[in-house]
């Protein structure tokens, strides 16, 4: 087909479509919404997956996280009132040594001990998470310094009484001054502030294996300082109503770094087998059946998140595809009506020399123009999805916000979703809408071409 002829057919189709603007518009709506929902749903899926991916990368794709868990069977026995005893569980120094010395792919080990304590600067107080760790903690959690410095090996060796404040902690405790060099009180002892970290958005929980973390209210100190000064040995004693309960945990968490560089695939391949070895090793050290630790592999979470996203995409895609099919049926219906309505025109054209395939071409082009235009409008609407989400969020924040908690469930729902329009979905959606035009336009066009010219001319 020559270009001029193609242009002629297209102009003819556009003319016919424009002749009944309302009808054409309504016919297109089905495709518009179908395409729009395909793009929007893929965008939501894409946004969710990129967020999950970002979180996992923050945890470190080549990291293995081993956490201490309070074993369930011993929790029940601690419920006996009036008794005081020491509950020992979790990761020990022996675990740490065995793992770091006997498993070759493990290059770095960062132990963490956490406590919740009140931190005070004069009249300003904050219930903070006190994190005892090593200098590597900074890098491993992708934290950045805003002022001063982070903990150093020297701090660790000397069990120095120094702390690094997280962004919000510093804001609360030192609303007006520079905290670096100033003291804070924790459990009646003074510690010198040596640095403040940068603001860091809280990470959301992933699939229940890892709870969300808000790094902004932390206080960091050398782990040995924490263990020696805030603990009685490893013992942590808490007074509850009528009884003392003592818990002995050496480390809450040990983060293991596998391989050497973060981005090479080789290292990633090592992660899951290494995690298996780590699990076996600790199980052997702790004895069978003592489930007081858990191994979390961010890479595994990434894979799970990916899998979930795929299922999510398929489900959403199918729903959208159904609406596209419904739109296609709508177009076919209208085109069949149009063929009946324009039977006489078909007869005239046939009498003046139009061949069957000219008629097929005319009606097929018209259907494709309808569905293709619908597709383009749908794509444009789809491109507005991210903006629309921002708009909904602003609206919810402004009018539906729950005053008591500072935000609303709806608002949080939308803020959790940051749709990203997948570029590949645009040509796909357009292609699908054109294909729908072809699929659902062929039958009406053939019906038009099959008409006997004499009968068609007689049609009123």
């Amino acid at each position: 087909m020559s270009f001029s002829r193609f242009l002629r057919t297209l102009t003819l189709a556009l003319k016919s479509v424009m002749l009944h603007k309302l009808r054409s518009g309504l016919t297109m709506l089905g495709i518009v919404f179908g395409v729009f929902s395909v793009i929007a749903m893929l965008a939501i899926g894409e946004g969710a997956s990129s967020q999950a991916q970002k979180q996992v990368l923050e945890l470190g794709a080549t990291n293995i996280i081993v956490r201490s868990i309070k074993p369930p069977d011993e929790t029940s026995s601690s419920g006996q009132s009036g008794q005081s005893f020491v509950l020992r569980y979790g990761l020990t120094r022996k675990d740490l040594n065995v793992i770091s010395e006997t498993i070759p792919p493990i290059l770095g080990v960062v132990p963490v001990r956490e406590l919740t304590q009140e931190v005070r600067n004069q009249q300003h107080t904050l219930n903070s998470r006190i994190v005892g760790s090593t200098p590597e903690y900074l890098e491993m959690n992708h934290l950045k310094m805003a002022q001063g410095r982070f903990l150093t090996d020297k701090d660790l060796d000397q069990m120095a009484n120094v702390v690094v404040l997280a962004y919000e902690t510093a804001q609360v405790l030192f609303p007006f001054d520079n905290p670096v060099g100033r003291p804070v009180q924790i459990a009646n002892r003074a510690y010198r502030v040596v640095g403040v970290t940068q603001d860091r958005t809280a990470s959301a929980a992933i699939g229940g294996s890892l709870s969300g973390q808000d790094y902004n209210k932390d206080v960091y100190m050398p782990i040995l300082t924490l263990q020696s000064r805030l603990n009685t040995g490893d013992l942590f004693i808490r007074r509850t109503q009528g009884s003392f309960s003592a818990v002995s945990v050496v480390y809450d968490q040990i983060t293991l770094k596998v391989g050497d560089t973060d981005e090479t695939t080789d290292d990633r391949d090592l992660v899951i087998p290494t995690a298996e070895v780590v699990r076996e090793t600790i199980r052997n050290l702790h004895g069978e059946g003592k489930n007081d630790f858990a191994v979390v592999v961010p890479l595994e979470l990434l894979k799970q998140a990916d899998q979930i996203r795929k299922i999510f995409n398929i489900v959403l895609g199918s729903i959208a595809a159904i609406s596209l099919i419904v739109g296609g049926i709508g177009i076919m219906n209208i085109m069949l009506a149009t063929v009946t309505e324009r039977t006489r025109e078909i007869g005239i054209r046939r009498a003046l020399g139009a061949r069957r395939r000219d008629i097929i071409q005319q009606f097929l082009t018209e259907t494709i123009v309808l569905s293709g235009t619908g597709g383009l409008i749908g794509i444009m609407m789809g491109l507005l999805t991210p903006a629309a989400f921002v708009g909904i969020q602003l609206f919810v924040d402004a009018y539906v916000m729950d005053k008591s908690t500072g935000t609303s469930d709806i608002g949080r729902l939308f803020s959790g979703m940051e749709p990203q329009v997948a570029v590949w979905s645009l040509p796909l959606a357009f292609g699908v809408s054109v294909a729908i035009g072809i699929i659902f336009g062929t039958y009406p066009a053939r019906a038009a071409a099959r008409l006997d010219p004499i009968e068609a001319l007689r049609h009123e």
Partner: protein
Amino acid sequence: MTAVARLVDLTKFYDLGAVVVKALRGVSLEIPEGDYIAIMGSSGSGKSTLLNLLAALDRPTQGQYILNGRDTSQMSDNDLSVVRNSDIGFIFQSFNLITQYTVLENIEVPLLYRPGYPPITARDRNRCIDVANQVGLGDRLDHRPFQLSGGQQQRVAIARALINDPAIIMADEPTGNLDSKTEEEIMQILTDLNNEGRTIIIVTHEKSVAQRTSRQIYMKDGLIAGEGIFPG
């Protein structure tokens, strides 16, 4: 004079299942170039069937229809379309213009379906305007059919029939929907075209129309009953 069209023992039967309608039962006719024929006859006489065959809208059951030297009786649907496009100019009783098109666009329609689909050139467009002027529509090119009177619409149809320079112009009751004054105008145009040498076949009921042609064929019961104007 050479024969532009020749009908040899044409028959057309319609198989309606229960009955077979014998619409044409053996019609032979020679149409020389430049002929001006009126086909008359009461309804059911087979004149519409004959018209459909002459206009290459249908194929005969038996017999031959040789148009411009080619036998159309065995042609495929595609080839018949080509014949209609290049050899036949069609004028209908109810004008049959495409309502969403302007006068000029209506005249252009046969150009859209020329064999090989050549693009419509400025020369083609000038020819459309010339033809429109010829039938007295020069000032109405941008009008749409509903803005025109019946006579003007029929002029558009005549211009459209002329645009591909056909071998035969077929007119099916061209004045059936017009008043007598307009009928006079339209018939004058057709007569002028015949005087220029065009072959014209008119199917009509009206004696006044038939009288203006040079040859009248009377149909009855699927056969040519005779030539000349028959009363009633």
